[in-house]
């Protein structure tokens, strides 16, 4: 039982390492801000989630409760979309240049002032 859990945790860790790297490389390599917003908010979130799932599995194997990991997982998965949406709003407000050109119709309802 323990070996099964540890093998599962090792596989999850490898997957998480891959996604963390993909997120960081995307943050450095992609050409404009709107594209760069995609890489960390999706890939890195999955990477952090994978690390925390591996930690939960190892806690299960060692017989200790993983409340903190569960809390971090919930928190990360709840807050990542919120912060990404706020950053996208700020980027549209500042009219950052995009490779796809300006939006087809003016964006409304973002800045109430």
């Amino acid at each position: 039982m323990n070996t099964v859990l540890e093998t599962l945790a090792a596989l999850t860790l490898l997957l998480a390492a891959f996604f963390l790297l993909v997120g960081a490389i995307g943050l450095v390599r992609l050409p404009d801000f709107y594209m760069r917003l995609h890489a960390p908010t999706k890939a890195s979130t999955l990477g952090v989630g994978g690390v925390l799932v591996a930690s939960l599995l190892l806690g299960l194997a060692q017989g200790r409760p993983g409340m903190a990991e569960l809390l971090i997982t919930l928190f990360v998965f709840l807050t990542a979309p919120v912060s990404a949406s706020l950053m996208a709003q700020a980027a549209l407000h500042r009219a950052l240049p995009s490779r796809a050109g300006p939006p087809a119709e003016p964006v409304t309802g973002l800045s109430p002032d």
Partner: protein
Amino acid sequence: MMLNLALNIALGAASLGVLLCTWRLLRGPDELDRVLALDTLAMNAVALIVLLGLRWGTPLLFEAALIVAMLGFAATVALSRYLTRGDVVE
């Protein structure tokens, strides 16, 4: 054995991620790029702290990771609000 290898690989990936985020943080053409880099840096730091907690067998570090995650989210929200409105709290 295999678990230790996987832990080492994941530690290397998270550290490389922190370095790449730092590059974007120093370079970033716009202020928002720096905010995004800081957000990703906080995520990678959470992963790194959890991995170190697993490696050293000290579950106390997981609470530290929770605090880093909350501080990173608060910083991102405050900074992007500031860049949108020029003001954090009206």
